[in-house]
């Protein structure tokens, strides 16, 4: 830590200045993480309180006694107003919607993106721009006519509107991301396969799909989350309580049981249960989650 004399700025203390810098950074990180963690802690703590503990001052962060029963009781109460709507049923409903919609969308989107990325045909650029422009179309515009389409097909109060439409390569944003990804793959790989006599289907399934797997996973995680958290779709299309997925069941519980005096402890318990699967997915597939969120903005 001696001065080299070459630079006018004092070299002395650069190490300690860096240490000070990282101490400040850590202090800031800690401070702001409280804004994330305290609400989470509040949710968890509330979900384990009895009704009386809810209104205690000061807040009991660790309730005494711990009301583990809330998690059962919340769903019992829900089951009383919506017969048959158990936790497992809601989970099955949510998974059914999410997995079907995600699978269809991934297949459709990857085929369309492949077409846009790899084959030259008249009008390709125009069609691609047209597709991008649909991203600007607010969903509120198409909402009512789309509802009327499903109503004319007499498919209201079924899962069809939530999962079948996913086959139509709807996510312009997803097509765009995958197309960008396809374009980074060298064309020689396919040309070699063509020489070997492979047809388009073989090339797509045996060569391209394995190569775009990271992008598909990233997209898959995001599409999964989107469907899991989707509220407006099930709200509009599903009427029978037994068919409700998590988010709508939560809304139903809030509307019918908590209208006058909000049962915050039950609602926080339900909302915690609802978030757990998606949080688990986040911790397992965090890399893909973050990749998916950044792909569009940085490359686009």
């Amino acid at each position, binding site marked *: 830590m001696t001065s080299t004399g070459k630079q006018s700025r004092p070299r002395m203390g650069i190490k300690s200045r860096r240490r000070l810098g990282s101490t400040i950074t850590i202090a800031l*990180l800690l401070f*702001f993480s409280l804004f*994330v963690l305290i*609400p*989470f802690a509040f*949710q968890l703590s*509330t979900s384990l309180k009895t009704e009386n503990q809810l*209104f205690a001052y000061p*807040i009991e962060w660790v309730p005494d006694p711990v009301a583990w029963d809330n998690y059962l009781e919340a769903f019992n109460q829900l089951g009383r107003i919506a*017969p048959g709507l158990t936790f497992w049923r809601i989970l099955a409903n949510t998974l059914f919607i999410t997995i079907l919609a995600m699978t*269809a969308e991934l297949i*459709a989107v990857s*085929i*369309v993106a492949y*077409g*846009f990325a790899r*084959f*030259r*045909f008249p009008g390709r650029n125009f*069609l691609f721009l047209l*597709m991008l422009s649909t991203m*600007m*179309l*607010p*969903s*509120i*515009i198409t*909402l*009512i*006519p789309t509802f*009327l*389409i499903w109503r004319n097909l007499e498919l209201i109060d*079924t*899962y*069809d509107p939530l*999962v*079948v*439409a996913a*086959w*139509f*390569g709807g996510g312009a944003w997803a097509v765009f991301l995958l197309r960008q990804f396809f374009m980074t793959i060298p064309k020689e790989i396919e040309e070699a396969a063509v020489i070997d006599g492979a047809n*388009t289907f073989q090339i797509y399934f045996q060569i391209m799909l394995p190569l775009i797997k990271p992008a598909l996973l990233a997209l898959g995680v995001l599409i999964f989350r989107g469907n899991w*958290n989707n*509220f407006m779709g099930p709200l509009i299309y599903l009427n*029978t309580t*037994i*068919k409700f997925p998590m988010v709508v069941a*939560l*809304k139903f519980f809030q509307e019918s049981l908590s209208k006058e005096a909000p049962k915050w402890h039950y609602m*926080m318990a339900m909302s915690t249960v*609802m*978030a757990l699967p*998606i*949080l688990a997915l986040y*911790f397992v597939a965090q890399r893909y*989650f*973050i990749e998916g*969120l*950044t792909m569009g*903005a940085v490359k686009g």
Partner: protein
Amino acid sequence: MVISAWETYYPTLLHWLLVGGGIMLSVLIVYRILRFFGVGREAATGYALITPWILGFLIFSLYPFARSLYLSFTEYNIFQPPEWVGFDNYVKVFTTDRHFWPNLKFTLFYALLNVPLGMAGALGVALLLNRALRGIGVWRSVYYLPEVLPAAAVALLWGWILAPKSGLINFFLRPVYELFNLEPLQWFTDVNLVLPSFVIMGMWGVFGANAIILLAGLKNIPQELYEVADLDGANAWQKFRIVTIPMLSSALLYTLVTGVIAALQIFTQAFFITTPTRAPQFMSVMIYREAFTFRHMGYASALAWVLMIIILIATLGVFRSTSAYVYYEGEKG
């Protein structure tokens, strides 16, 4: 009456498989037809592969778009056929509807507050998470948590945090209230505080997608630029202004545009929070209620068109006013 799960899943599963098979088949058929008419192999494959999107575009974008425009000139309650009323719906929106202007003002003010505050916050978070520090990955995992939660769960949680009695915020503010002898703020239940309450709730969004995107943008900035700035004797603020902001401008523009569009269409959060009936509502909630509670499909379509044009103007405004400032690598460099 309890219906078994399989009974409700089975028809949809069948339709799902049929439509999926149909889509795959249509890809093949389009290819064969195009080849039959002498279209080249490459072009035919290309058209065939984008067939799912073309069908989807016609059925779920173009047709609803046109139909929505038509419906906005009609009165339609679903049960009787639509009745043409000319510009009546639009006249009603701008003149006799007592709720439209307050609701529009409310939505616009929300976007005006939420977007800049949210972007500044997200940039701060991104700068903090960009520091080279051991264990920064763990911090990032923590900071992105709110992004993962369903919007519904976030709304519910913040409705409780901002509850007038025994909510978290009023718990922390209690000493302040007592010191100045103030009445506790009533947040979502006070007509005048509904907007600030939504903005506060929205601020939780700074931990999330925008921060992730801006962080990725920060990492893409070549380190040499900072080294050059160092040699020129720039201080931290100057480096931030001269290097960071211009190099980040395309990511900032992206978050700005998506932020404006999302803020003007906010729905789920608003739907989960009970506000006084006298309080204004967000435009999306208003449109939803007109359409699905009151069955005014025509009027709701007109409202949707007005909202779309406002979103369009806002987006174009953002692009026009920022085009001079956004730096794209490869364009000039």
